[in-house]
């Protein structure tokens, strides 16, 4: 019986004709260059194929075993946020001329993706207040690591000073990426208000420092006063890197205004589904003078031979396919479709919409925090101003509390003990524009009952 499959068009008659044209009797003859002892004798120990109808049943059941945000009221954040994404975003991303396309190596046939990337880079520059953006990185942790490597390459210095407010998983990624480099990573503690401690940071900065890295809002939700840190970094000749949350930039001072040399972050908030952690979008933007150190693809504007404006991947002498081991990064495939998603999302919400998303999230979070703080023993951990995510001290071990909240259909927050052993009483609570007051009130009532 010939194996029939919807993705394989060669009929038995086709195969015969093709084999005759090639001049062999059997497809197996084409594999003779593989030594016989390396060719599998039997079949792989894997179940038989499923038809499309069967696949739908199987994965419907598997997906049904997940409790999505529609089934559980979700207050988890910590680098991935539940936002509303307008219908148009998904519809446009489903244009298969975009999603079934390759990296735009032949620009005459791929102006659509290239122009969208140029618009993406323009949006990132507009949000961050920086001068140049690349065409995307894998995700926020990767973007932070690449930003540090840029600073290392640019300054020729080895010390990386990071605020303790940087996402702990980003710090882990940076440690992995720099395992075999001669870099030294130093983490500066936060002050009692939850903001980075300028004096503590200054004490760690020296003439060997390549970069100072600050997150805003930081991992605990607290808003930093970044400008003095930029001055401190520049005073020792180091670069200042800010890891930022893009929705917050609608209201918060941009990295450019703060004096940052490099801005980076996770772009998932911009219309990209949670999808259990990926695919997401790393973004990175910098001052123009750092463009040669910028990793990955960059799209540029030029003209064609008819005098029309057109777009093309440019400054490729930085890249692996040209420079091989001398390239400034190894990036090939990155996250183009997610960059397109973010661009369409930003076009969909516009400047007013993004401000509403940011301010509604902040207002709803402050309402929730205010109500929760009325419960005896519960308090917001830090006195510093915060944006739409906050650290809540439950006054007792958070583990059983979170379990009890889950039983009531609420994922109440990320336990800080996940990243910081010893901080068993604290959770990180994220609120976005999607939460209605009734839900917030239900959270408060549920926690009252649980405690």
């Amino acid at each position, binding site marked *: 019986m010939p194996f029939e499959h919807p993705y394989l068009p060669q009929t038995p008659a086709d195969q015969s004709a093709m084999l005759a044209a090639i001049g062999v009797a059997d497809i197996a003859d084409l594999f003779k260059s593989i030594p016989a002892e390396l060719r599998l004798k039997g079949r792989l120990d894997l179940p038989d194929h499923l038809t499309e109808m069967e696949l739908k049943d199987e994965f419907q059941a598997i997906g049904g075993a997940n409790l999505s945000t529609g089934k559980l009221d979700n207050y988890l954040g910590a*680098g991935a946020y539940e936002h509303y994404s307008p219908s148009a975003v998904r519809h446009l991303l489903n244009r298969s001329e975009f999603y079934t396309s390759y990296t735009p190596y032949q620009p005459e046939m791929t102006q659509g993706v290239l122009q969208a990337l140029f618009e993406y880079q323009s949006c990132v520059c507009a949000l961050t207040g920086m001068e140049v953006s690349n065409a995307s990185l894998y995700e926020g942790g990767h973007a932070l690591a690449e930003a540090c490597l840029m600073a290392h390459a640019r300054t020729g210095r080895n010390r990386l000073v990071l605020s303790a407010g940087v996402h702990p998983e980003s710090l882990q990624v940076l440690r992995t990426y720099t395992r075999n480099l001669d870099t030294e990573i130093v983490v500066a503690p936060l002050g009692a208000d939850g903001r980075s401690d300028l004096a503590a940071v200054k004490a760690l900065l020296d003439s060997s420092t390549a970069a100072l890295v600050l997150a805003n809002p930081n991992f605990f939700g607290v808003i930093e006063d970044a400008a003095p840190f930029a001055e401190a970094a520049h005073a020792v000749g180091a670069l200042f890197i800010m890891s930022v949350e893009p929705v917050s930039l609608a209201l918060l001072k941009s990295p450019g205004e703060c004096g940052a040399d490099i801005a980076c972050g996770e772009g998932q908030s911009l219309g990209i589904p949670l999808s259990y952690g990926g695919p997401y979008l790393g973004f990175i933007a910098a001052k123009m003078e750092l463009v040669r150190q910028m990793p990955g693809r960059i799209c540029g504007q030029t003209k*064609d031979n008819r005098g029309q404006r057109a777009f093309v991947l440019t400054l490729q002498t930085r890249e692996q396919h040209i420079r091989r081991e001398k390239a400034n990064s190894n990036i090939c495939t990155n996250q183009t479709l997610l960059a397109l998603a973010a661009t369409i999302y930003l076009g969909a919400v516009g400047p007013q919409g993004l401000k509403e998303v940011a301010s509604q999230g902040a207002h709803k979070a402050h309402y929730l925090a205010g109500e929760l703080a009325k419960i005896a023993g519960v308090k917001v951990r830090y006195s510093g101003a915060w944006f739409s995510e906050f650290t809540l001290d439950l006054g007792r071990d958070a583990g059983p509390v979170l379990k009890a909240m889950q039983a009531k259909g609420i994922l109440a927050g990320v336990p800080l003990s996940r990243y910081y052993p010893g901080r068993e009483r604290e959770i990180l609570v994220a609120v976005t524009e999607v939460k209605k007051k009734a839900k917030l009130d239900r959270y408060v009532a549920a926690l009252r009952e649980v405690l």
Partner: protein
Amino acid sequence: MSEEKLIFEKSAPGRRATTFPALDVPAPAGEDWLPKEARRGLALGLPEVSEQDLVRHYTRLSQRNIGIDTQIYPLGSCTMKYNPKVNEDLAGRDGFRNIHPLQPDDTVQGALRVLWEMERWLSEISGMPAICLQPSAGAQGELTALLVCKAYHDSRGRRPRKVLVPDSSHGTNPASAAYCGYTVETVKSLPNGTVDLEDLKPRITEDVACLMMTNPNTVGIFEKDISLIAGWMHAVDAQLYYDGANLNAICAVARPGDMGCDMMHFNVHKTFSTPHGGGGPGAGPIGVKEHLRPFLPVPRVRRTEQGVFSLDEGEPKSIGRVRHFTGNFGILLRGLVYLKSFGGDGLPEIARRAVLNANYLLALLKGRFHATYGDRCMHEFVLSVSDQKKRKGVGALDYAKRMADYGYHAPTIYFPLIVPEALMLEPVETEAKETLDELAAVLAKIDGEDPALLHAAPVNTPVGRLDEVGAARNPVLRWKPKA
């Protein structure tokens, strides 16, 4: 076709494509929650358009782009196969799309099962006992595996400094090795396209950490001596890396693990049909042999005998994370759906048809074009038009641009670097015989055309040849509002 304005140039103050419900909680008095020194002063320079403006703009941009759904995409080493629609449907389901990466394990048993099953499938296909799904793309997989390699050598108190790569290798191989702090040494290829064993053997010393091989290699030839090479490597405790970019040629026919390879990466967006997205997202899982397992990134997926899944961060020798959370889940899910659509009974048929298609296309073209490595290949092959370049002054770039006039995306050109005026074609298994016949006919027609037509090409595309030198010399990398 006229230029398409930028979305910014279609903007008019006050237009919007989305509105939000009124705030239903009492707003804090004033804006006290946000200190003055932390407030944004810079205007938020984003476009303001209606919903229809937005939809029309990006629909029009999509029409200025081609994809696999519009035509054959014979890019060598890129494995541009059909992206099944059912994969998109399933990945778009609420139970997969709307789950947070930090949800407790007991609320995401389905997602963890997807990851666990994907590990099992990749392990069986590759002959690698341990799989890590975390890397976001092939190049990150390379880097991750090389970090694992380094950690392994460290654990044995050894500090080899070199990574060997063949001169036909992908640029990511040497770039990843350099990223990892290694010195890169290039190994020569023979005229038949395979690694020159005489050049390779003396290079394999105690100072070598790893050799990175692609098999079949980038010219579409199977490196038949790979087991022998593995033996040489292992004699000095060096590791053999398998670059999975060309796995489609041998998937379920032969296994990297059986060839003696110690570690490898998979390109899920090549071999397992997930959409390339115009340049990502991909997924670049790695597979390793037992001796490298302890060094893999965390978290690891576990399953109890009762069938309960969990994530485990506790591996003392792990190199750590290479990204946030657990990987490009949405891509891995699509890959698993694809694998199950073929199953253990059908998987070998993918490589069989891919190799059949490639050899058929080669048979159609070899009379007219110089087939650099003979008349047999695996999943892809390289033609050289250096003769045409000498005779008529038309090179690989001219052929590529002229193909666009006939509605065909070009093959990979000028790669591998060892072949002058290279055209590298990978027709993949999902293309029908008629499509290959048409592609060959177009290439033959172009080959007979007046060189002036090739030099002028493309003329039938939305834009003509671009001033790429000007783009790099005077970089314009973003739109700016007129001052």
